[in-house]
């Protein structure tokens, strides 16, 4: 693994170009959400003041909110605020939007991270299994399962899991992040699993894991299916490659070939797709959090959307975009670590 640190300039350049691309994505996203927010039929100032306010009061509010300025000025103000992490105040609660989001972010972060882990831990080995016994009954069964996973919307999986638990696991907690009676550890990360471990509070970890199991599985199911399918086809394709054939003909055991050489080579395609899939993962988190009363960033987003809290909606969309971009950057780096052809490519 020591080689990883010899990052060639080519890879740095590649990363820089990606970062530039991500910046463009966020810029376009900000333009889009700003344009959307300004075609609203309702008057944000009227919404903030409530129906009893007089016309003069609303007009004063419009002035204060800057809604009377020309659109480019308004956009520039929105953008420069966003860069500094300032999205204004919520039209409903009157508190800074950013503060609300930061408070709720760890809950969603924990859910998403555990979901990603579940996708990899289940999807990749099952894909290997399907490739190993391809066209046999294991393969057919797994193909069927992945088809079901892709076919079922996340909210249905979530509800069916709840229904199942209500009938067969009567003690299993179905709502929230943690049991009511447990005192929160209050650590540095806000992630209950990590804070619980740091504080040595196994009851916290246990309860948090119980609460995480169903939502994370509901979110992960479609991803597990896709990763499994991609891993399978990549394994089968790479099996034909010369260097793999050479290893096999030298008598290197199947297991070593599979796990030391083939798997590494075959993890690139599923990783790339996971980056794109991350967008739909964020979307599904909105629904799953609602079903499980998770109380995270996504449920907050849903609430703001339902209440027409414009500033909060804009912030939620932007933060979702930032989430997506960061995840893809991490995946690009990971692929660079796995694939030396990319990392060590001279020049270009």
């Amino acid at each position, binding site marked *: 693994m020591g080689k990883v640190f010899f990052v060639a300039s080519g890879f740095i350049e590649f990363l820089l170009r990606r970062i530039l*691309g991500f910046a*463009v*994505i966020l810029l*376009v*996203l900000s333009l*889009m*959400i700003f344009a*959307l*927010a300004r*075609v*609203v*039929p309702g008057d944000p100032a009227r919404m903030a003041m409530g129906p009893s306010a007089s016309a003069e009061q609303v007009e004063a509010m419009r002035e204060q909110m800057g809604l009377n300025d020309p659109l480019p000025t308004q956009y520039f103000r929105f953008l420069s605020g966003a860069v500094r992490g300032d999205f204004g105040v919520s039209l409903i609660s009157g508190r800074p939007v950013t503060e609300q989001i930061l408070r709720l972010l760890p809950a969603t972060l924990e859910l998403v991270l555990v979901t990603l882990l579940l996708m990899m831990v289940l999807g990749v080995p099952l894909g290997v299994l399907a490739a190993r016994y391809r066209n046999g009954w294991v393969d057919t069964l797994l193909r069927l399962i992945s*088809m*079901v996973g*892709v*076919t*079922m*919307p*996340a*909210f*249905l999986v979530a*509800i*069916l899991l*709840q*229904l199942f638990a*209500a*009938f067969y696991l009567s003690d299993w907690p179905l709502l929230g992040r943690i049991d009511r009676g447990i005192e929160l550890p209050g650590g540095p990360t806000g992630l209950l699993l990590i804070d619980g471990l740091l504080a040595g509070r196994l009851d916290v970890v246990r309860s948090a894991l119980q609460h995480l199991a169903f939502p994370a599985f509901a979110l992960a199911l479609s991803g597990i299916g896709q990763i499994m399918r991609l891993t399978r086809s990549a394994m089968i394709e790479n099996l034909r490659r010369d260097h793999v054939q050479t290893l096999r003909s030298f008598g290197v055991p199947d297991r070593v070939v599979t796990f030391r050489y083939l798997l590494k080579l075959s993890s690139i395609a599923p990783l790339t797709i996971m980056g*794109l899939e991350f*967008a*739909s993962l*964020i*979307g*599904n988190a*909105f*629904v799953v959090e*609602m079903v499980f009363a998770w109380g995270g960033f996504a449920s907050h*987003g*849903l609430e703001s*959307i*339902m209440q*027409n809290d*414009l500033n909060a*909606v804009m912030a*939620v*969309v932007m933060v*979702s*975009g930032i989430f*997506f*971009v960061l995840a*893809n950057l991490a995946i690009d780096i990971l692929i660079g670590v796995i694939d030396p052809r990319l990392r060590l490519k001279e020049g270009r």
Partner: protein
Amino acid sequence: MPSPDDTMRAVEEETPVILSARRMAWMRFRSNPAALIGGFMVISVILAAIFAPLIAPYPEAAGNTIDFANRHAAPSAENFAGTDKVGRDIFSRVIFGFRVSLLLVIGVLGIAVPVGAALGLAAGYFGGRTELLITGFTNVMLAIPPLVIALAVGSILTPTLVNAMIAIALLWWTWHARLVYRVAKSVAAEDFVEAARLAGASHWHVLTREILPNCIAVISVKTTLDAAFVILFGATLSFLGLGVRPPTPDLGSMVADGRQFLPEMWWGVFFPALGIFYATLGFNLLGDGLRDMFDVEV
């Protein structure tokens, strides 16, 4: 398929039996049971949607009827799937619910597929600055979480079926643009395209008559698979309360309604869920079958 007699005659006459590409593809499709089942499921959903008033045992359940004496009735001989909180037959409502799902599919894909295909064709054929602009824009749009934007649009505008369609279509064309671009670019480099240009054919002719036919296979596979996703997406939106207005039956909002009465009245969630599952599984199986049939990567 040629009969043994045909084959023998062909051997005797020393002319090989040549199957047209279309015939071969059809044979591949026919010998794939999953694809056939998927095709059957899709056709049954479409027929059920068109003839809903004739098929549904209680067509009035699609409207505002109320039958409190019969509310929350468990599945029985009269109501295969039980009744909902105001006593309407759930089976009938699921049949009518397919109408909304399919309308959404037609609306979204009717916008997204032509737009995506046109942009993909232009990018692949013209190259240069057009290509750079279109692929760049497509890649940016691909990165935007579709459900988040759909939610934002649904809440900023009033939540109706048409707005839901707009919201979904706004981001859906990207996948088609990407796919058609890939095929168009490789086809545009072929000799017959060059030949057509040299013979004086217009850009329009080359695009529609020489390149587009080669993209039909990927477009149709992707469109079929997309139908499943749009149904799923629409169900998610209406589950969140951003779909059609009641009392119009819609699978997603039926699940949301039934959810309040879990776990005792499980049928209120289970049968609408089964409806969603049936429709999306059908389109997925059919799409997979078409993919094998045309032998394309989508």
